[in-house]
């Protein structure tokens, strides 16, 4: 089994490491700035042009021979997998919960049914990100094999020129002319709109901030720091933040690297949703509240004034 990982500007898609682990450590990493990915295993790095499912499929089809291929069910993986399957004439099994050489568990009915499928011969599968995890045993298995080849694949801009393709698709009427849309921009994540679950930095506020205006200010500061905005239940109940920004047992469970808590008391129902941040900064007038007790840096100060100062200093 081998994993195929599409990389954009060196950024791995969700579920990349899981896919490689599921494939037993072998992977083709294809995309742009592939040399900078942080992924261990026996990797073949293929530097290619900007992502285009048809072009990438054509490029890859020739390298994949008689062994199952597994891609993360991330946007690019989902796009590429059917194209690959069609070119190779192999069955597609997607989205999968677990992938074995002869048996795949496919998820159906919006995650309520699991179909166990037996398959003879090679296939293409996509693996749902986040369901597998990667353990110590996986990296041991991988490190025992050497990391291999880096290659650069000269590739025309996703284009209209026909490309010679090795494959066995008899039915695709025009499989030999892979066309892809034209990529005009890659937009970075917007911390203010991205899901809190994915955020690596979070600025959050509590009851002590007291108004929508303050949360808007906190949001701006967050944007300047590349951090997403969150808050306590008090804040979401009051309507200062939307519900999907509430962190805690009855809100979302987050897992940021850095957490900044402004005027949050740190009730268990809030902190239980915090994950395990490497760093916590708390600003609170009450030196002895649990949030301050949890923080690496606990600053006793008026949170509103600190926000004003932060905004000034960040715009200076």
């Amino acid at each position: 089994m081998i994993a195929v990982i599409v990389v954009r500007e060196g950024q791995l898609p969700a579920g990349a490491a899981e896919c490689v682990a599921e494939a037993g450590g072998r992977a083709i990493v294809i995309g742009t700035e592939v040399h900078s990915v942080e992924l261990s295993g026996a990797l073949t790095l293929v530097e290619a042009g900007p992502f285009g499912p048809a072009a990438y499929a054509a490029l890859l089809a020739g390298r994949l021979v008689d062994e199952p291929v597994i891609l993360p069910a991330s946007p690019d993986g989902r796009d590429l997998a059917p194209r690959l399957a069609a070119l190779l004439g192999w069955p597609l099994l997607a989205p999968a919960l677990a992938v074995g050489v002869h048996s795949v568990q496919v998820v159906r009915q919006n995650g309520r049914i699991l179909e166990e499928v037996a398959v003879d011969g090679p296939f293409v599968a996509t693996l749902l990100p986040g369901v597998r995890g990667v353990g110590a045993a996986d990296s041991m298995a991988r490190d025992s094999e050497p990391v291999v080849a880096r290659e650069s694949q000269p590739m025309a801009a996703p284009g209209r020129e026909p490309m010679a393709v090795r494959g066995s698709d008899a039915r695709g009427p025009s499989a030999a002319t892979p066309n892809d849309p034209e990529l005009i921009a890659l937009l970075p994540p917007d911390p203010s709109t991205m899901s809190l679950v994915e955020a690596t930095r979070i600025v959050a506020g509590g009851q002590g901030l007291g108004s929508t205006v303050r949360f808007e200010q906190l949001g701006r500061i967050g944007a300047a720091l590349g951090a997403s905005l969150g808050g306590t239940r008090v804040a979401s109940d009051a309507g200062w933040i939307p519900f999907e920004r509430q962190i805690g047992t009855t809100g979302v469970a987050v897992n940021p690297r850095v957490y900044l808590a402004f005027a949050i008391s740190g009730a268990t129902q809030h902190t239980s949703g915090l994950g395990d941040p490497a760093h916590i900064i708390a600003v609170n007038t009450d030196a002895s509240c649990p949030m301050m007790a949890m923080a690496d840096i606990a600053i006793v100060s008026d949170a509103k004034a600190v926000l004003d100062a932060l905004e000034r200093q960040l715009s200076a």
Partner: protein
Amino acid sequence: MGRYRYLFSPLRIGPVTVRNRVIFSAHLTNYAEDGLATEQHAAYYEARAAGGAGLIITEEHSTHPTDWPYEKLIHGFHRKVIPGYRRITDAVHRHGTPIFAQINHNGGQASSMYSRLPVWAPSAVPDPLFREVPKAVTVREIAEIVAGYALVAGHCREGGFDGVELQCSHSSIVRGFLSGATNLRRDQYGGSLANRARILIEIVRAVREAIGPGLALGVRLCGDELIEGGTTIDEAVEVAKMVEATGQVDYINTSIGVATATLYVIEASMHVPPGYALFIPNAIRRAVSIPVVGVGRFKDALQAERALAEGHCDLVGAVRAQIADPDFVRKAQAGAHEDTRLCLSCNQECVGRMGLNRWLGCIENPRTGREALVPAVPSRSPVPKKVLVVGAGPAGMQAAISAASHGHEVTVYERDDEVGGQVRWAASVPNRAELGDVLRNQQRELVAHGVKLCLGHGVDAGFVTAQKPDVVIVATGAAPARPYWAPGDASTIVDVLDVLTGSAWPPAGARVVIVDELGFHQATSVAEVLADRGCSVEILTNGMVVAQDLGITLDMENFLTRAAAKSIILTTDSVVMGWNGTHLSVLHHVSNTMHELATDWVVLAVAPRAADELYFELLAQGVTVHRVGDCVAPRRIHAAVIEGDRIGAAL
């Protein structure tokens, strides 16, 4: 279904179907009398069944007369137990809830005190707690043990149980066999893992034969004993595979630690992060396909849901969560999270009372263990009274809740801007926030019962009488006291509360001596706060152990570890005799020697005095007045809650 995709979905456990994934997992209750289950058991389990538990597993039933480690054990091997079993299973079945019995032989983790028979174990390795050298069992005795399990399993079947769980984890002769630390045998029951697991497989076969195919059979395994040479996760996974391979077991329950060595990881207190033990079901579930149970500090439905969603386990055991609130499941399912009386993981009245040989209770639920005596819905008083409560600590709040739930009209006056009294501060230190949930729980109930709460409103006798209440309940708590050697004006001799409220601020680098006469969290909490701040801290106690009562709540081990990491000095057997402004004179009473101890600050964790002035003033004026909690005599939260609860019913 809402936010719960898995928690409330049914599951088949062999022949039994559970309606949700929450198990009231096995735990001692000390409700037994003369080796038999009681009405107290039946009512206790029934309350959890009515509260929505998906499955109940009873406390252990002993399988053999050589097994009697504590007084109030159910002697499952007597046929006499069957009527009691029936009473329990009928009560639980009334609510459509299945119930399994846990059966066990504690092996070497016992003393001969009660049984006056030698303790049996695989090898003559004394238990670290009981320190008694057991008798290494013979092969014939092993057969007797196996037969004992089968006998008791048969009793369980006759008693109406839906299944049987073999306790092979933290306190069991089977654990003793499985563990390399306690099994030194060289026959077919020792040596290789397969040999060490032989007795378990034999028991599985015998029990399955005794119960037939209609009952479920489960095995509870320990994933990491956390003792030198003990079972670790890899071995546990292997054993789980062997268990599954018998084809006769329907689920695997998990646990961690050894009850007589590392109990603090089994019934972990609030210092231990939730989800700490999930790696065990996780590893086992990856290796077997029968349902696996995860246990350990599940106190929130969503947390449980997440564990299920990530596949760490198929079911969760939530023990203390349901000790504290029997309706935990029902409330979660109804979305009434707010109404849940969250367990604090304080271990004071559940685990704590087990250690003291008393029946199981809960610090914040006075009805726990008294379900058969106290109706679930309080009766309304025929003559509603106007009740005035002074003080919104745990005592005052509980009194108000209780009075209001009996139909009285209640107003609470509190001097501070927030409720909670001393508890607010007790909970304000690292890792103790959960203690504060008792206040949240109570405050929520106050609101639900329509109690009027006046914060920031200290009252005196004049004010109280002017309100013309029918009854006054004084719950003014305790106030710090100073020992004779501490001058009243010495500003560097302060109380623990002064440090927690911030009214005294020993700065980083200061030398601080904490004088501990209470032996509980007061001294240790403050010591940690100050050590974190950068003070050099020493706790001085007249007792033989610093913070002795942390042992009861299973906080001792982790406190000692943290104290060592934070360089907190622990000094025992020492009595302060005087202070000269820079030094304390300390008597080491064991050696009867004096020495001087230089210090910048002295923090007192000494017995406070009851703040009872208001009570006596009102009494003198002929007002109908009662008092509850620390203002009767300074004690702990459980006393405050129980007294508060009683007074409401008695008005």
